[in-house]
């Protein structure tokens, strides 16, 4: 304000009997149709100087050509629509004043110079708004428009600004506007530096045309700044790819880690693994439905409630499968594959018969929806949660296998069954529990995947091949191998996608794994020792 006031005073003095600052907004608006275009530009400036928020609507209407003067009493109206559909509104309050008879009003004419004044006025009004978020939005908009006419408004706003982050945005907008003007080259070179510091696509849009500037100093500085921004953009693009890759990797890890136990540790090919994931997702769906019906307040806890339930449902089915089917087929892996495929078909059709073939809606709890900005990349909270969840599940499994009596017995049984039996371990019970554990983890995966994928009876089918490939690629029997395989395949896939397209990227990854298996038939981290070959 400090800079603007003397300026306005000066203008008032220079142009004689013009609206004094003390005049009310209503009075100023009434003067809008009067005088030459340049006189009216002064009125617009004075309206902006009132800093009255209601004035934004008036100026916008003026810019659009919607502001009319009623012939009968000279009142200023905002008119929308044409002909018989025309309706009048109070420009200040937005209150509807009814239909407008034809030819009862004249539109207030605007030319380009006046439009510039209007834009500048709106910028002043919004940049001085009470609400800091509105001020920030106005500053960003001013940056994008990079309009030299707004320089004064920006300067005034910067001087009055208290909030540091908004002040920075205004300073950047001022620099952008300065670059579009023909100010002193030294000032403009300085402005290039300010814009470069902002980075991002907007800054590139401002700087790129300047590379062709007639002033060599500016052209040079702009070229350097553009190169710098492009470098950082490429870096952020890579970071974003890594993030997407981690996200895909965590999904693969969740889907595959249960198989890492049933297939990797026990050597049982469980083709129903995908369907156990699907059951986990449907458990989440049922839990949420019950919560919606009976205790809507608990909805944010629905996933926390669903997770143990899904573990129990899928784990229970796993134990039943082991006792009923898999037990009879040990030592015949290919037959196990067929029998469990049969189970998968039955589970699929059961779910289809009970819940119908269509997708079911599973909601995101409020704490999982939304996103935040990290530099140039967007991090969605549900993906972040799933990555963390995958890591927690993986860590939990590692601790269970390495640090508990159950894990010790499990490893004993898988390494040397007769010896373990002679030590008094109930091998049959351990088998059932191990299989149940792998199945239960699949159920947990289902809870997570219900948040990002369609919950339908076909959910499992889309993960089964990927999960097997992850386990085989990592090396059966090695959970860390599964971990490394999941994340490396996820990241490789996401880096290929922009180059080759999503489907081709997936095909390339499949071909790569097929070739890799030829080279290292036992995966990235093969188990060593005699027991492996048997």
């Amino acid at each position, binding site marked *: 304000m400090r800079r603007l006031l003397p300026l306005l005073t000066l203008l008032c003095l220079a142009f004689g009997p013009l609206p004094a600052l003390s005049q009310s907004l209503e009075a100023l608006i009434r003067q809008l149709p009067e005088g030459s275009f340049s006189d009216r530009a002064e009125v617009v400036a004075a309206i902006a100087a009132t800093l009255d928020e209601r004035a934004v609507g008036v100026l916008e209407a003026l810019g659009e050509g919607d502001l009319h003067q009623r012939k009968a009493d000279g009142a200023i109206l905002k008119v929308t629509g044409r002909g018989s559909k025309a309706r009048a509104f109070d420009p200040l309050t937005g209150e509807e004043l009814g239909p407008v008879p034809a030819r009862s009003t004249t539109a207030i004419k605007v030319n380009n110079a006046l439009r510039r004044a209007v834009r500048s006025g709106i910028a002043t009004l919004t940049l001085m708004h009470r609400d800091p978020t509105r001020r920030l939005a106005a500053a960003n908009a001013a940056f994008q428009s990079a309009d030299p006419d707004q320089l004064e408004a920006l300067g005034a706003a910067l001087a009055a600004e208290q909030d540091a982050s908004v002040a920075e945005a205004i300073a950047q907008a001022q620099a952008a506007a300065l670059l579009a003007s023909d100010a002193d080259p030294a000032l403009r070179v300085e402005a290039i530096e300010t814009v470069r510091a902002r980075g991002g696509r907007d800054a590139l849009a401002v700087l790129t045309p300047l590379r062709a500037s007639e002033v060599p100093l500016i052209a040079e500085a702009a070229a350097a700044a553009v190169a710098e921004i492009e470098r950082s953009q490429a870096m952020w693009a890579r970071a974003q790819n890594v993030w997407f890759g981690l996200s895909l990797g965590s999904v693969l890890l969740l889907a595959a880690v249960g198989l890492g136990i049933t297939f990797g540790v026990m050597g049982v090919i469980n083709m129903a693994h995908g369907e156990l994931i699907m059951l986990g997702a449907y458990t989440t769906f049922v839990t949420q439905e019950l919560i919606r019906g009976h205790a809507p307040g608990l909805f944010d806890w629905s996933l926390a409630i669903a997770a143990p339930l899904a573990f129990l449902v899928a784990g229970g089915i796993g134990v039943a499968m082991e006792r009923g089917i898999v037990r009879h087929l040990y030592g015949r892996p290919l037959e196990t594959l067929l029998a469990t495929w*049969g189970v998968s078909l039955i589970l699929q059709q059961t779910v289809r018969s009970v819940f119908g073939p269509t997708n079911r809606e599973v909601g995101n709890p409020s704490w999982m929806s939304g996103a935040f900005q990290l530099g140039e990349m967007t991090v969605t909270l549900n993906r972040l949660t799933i990555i963390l969840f995958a890591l927690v599940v993986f860590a939990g499994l590692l601790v269970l296998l390495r640090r508990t009596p159950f894990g010790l017995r499990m490893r004993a049984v898988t390494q040397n069954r007769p010896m373990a039996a002679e030590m008094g371990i109930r091998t049959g019970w351990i088998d059932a529990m191990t299989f149940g554990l792998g199945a239960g983890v699949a159920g947990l995966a289902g809870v997570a995947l219900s948040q990002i994928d369609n919950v339908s009876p076909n959910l499992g089918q889309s993960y089964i091949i990927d999960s097997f490939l992850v386990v*085989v690629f990592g090396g059966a029997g090695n959970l860390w191998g599964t971990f490394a395989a999941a994340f490396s395949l996820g990241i490789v896939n996401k880096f290929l996608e922009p180059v080759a397209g999503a489907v081709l990227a997936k*095909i390339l990854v499949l071909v790569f794994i097929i070739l890799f298996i030829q080279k290292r*038939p036992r995966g990235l981290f093969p188990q060593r020792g005699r027991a492996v070959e048997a």
Partner: protein
Amino acid sequence: MVRKGLIDRRTGLFLVVLFAVIVLIPLGNLLLAPGTAGHVPGYLLPLLGKYLCFALLAVSLDLVWGYAGILSLGHGAFFALGGYAMGMHLMREIGDRGVYANPVLPDFMVFLSYEKLPWYWHGFDMFWFACLMVLFVPGLLAFVFGWFAFRSRVTGVYLSIITQALTYALMLAFYRNEMGLGGNNGLTDFRDVLGFSLSDDSTRIALFVLSGLALAFGIILGRFITGSKFGMVLVGVRDAESRTRFLGYRVEHYKLFVFTVSAMLAGLAGALYVPQVGIINPGEFSPANSIEIVIWVALGGRCTLVGAALGALIVAAAKSWLTANFPEAWLFVLGAAFVLVTIFLPRGVIGLLDGLKPGGRHRHALPQAAPEPAE
């Protein structure tokens, strides 16, 4: 009761019945008036012909799984490739009778604004070339894939999983419009083959009889391969691969040969399948299809060839009947078949039949219990 020679009693019986069927069914269509008992309506012919193609596909899988212990979960890919080769010929034969009446480009290419025919479509206007490709393309893929896989000793479950990945990758690839093979919709709207309209009963009969003959050929070829010394070595590979290798056999060559032959048979089945059902699309590559072939073989009885064909016929007929009458029940039945057969009928329906009479076991029969690791 073990009989040496090319055709044993069981195979002989099957072939006699098969020949009777491929004679009687066309007669039932041609001679008996519609409405009388025993008349075979024209629409049934392609359906029965389709079953025979499935039977041939099952025989081809039994050749590698039953005798060499290679459980391929990607045999549907060879079948589909043979089908696509034939489909490309049928597409070219439509000529300018398509919707867009383009004399060279099939409809979908006009629709996707192709300028000219992609290079790999050249030659498919000639029937003999298409027939050659029906065998060559699946054979080449099997040879290359097997060359790498068997040489680096990828066996058992690992092999099954990468064959599954292979067919999955092909499915994704064929879904792409850029492949120039019709994308999602695949190839369809066929009119005629060698000038005979595909909707004529006489053409349908010819295709049906050809499918039957192809099945007979597949079984006899399989008997010939497995009955030879070569077949003995294959069984040796299946039961004790390392021991066979240590005896001085180049295990990978044996596997590669039988895998390639099997893929070519599967391609042949696909080529006969396409003109009868009138469409080939990427869905044929889906891993679930390939696994279904395995249950045909398992249900009929592995390592018998005839059993595989029988299993395919039983399952395919049951599928047609159940999906028409009880659509919800089909997957339950199929799923239960997988579970029950593997646990209670490890030697399939043929094993059940053999079990009824003493001494009916076959000399290549699977070991009763799981084989002890020989190494």
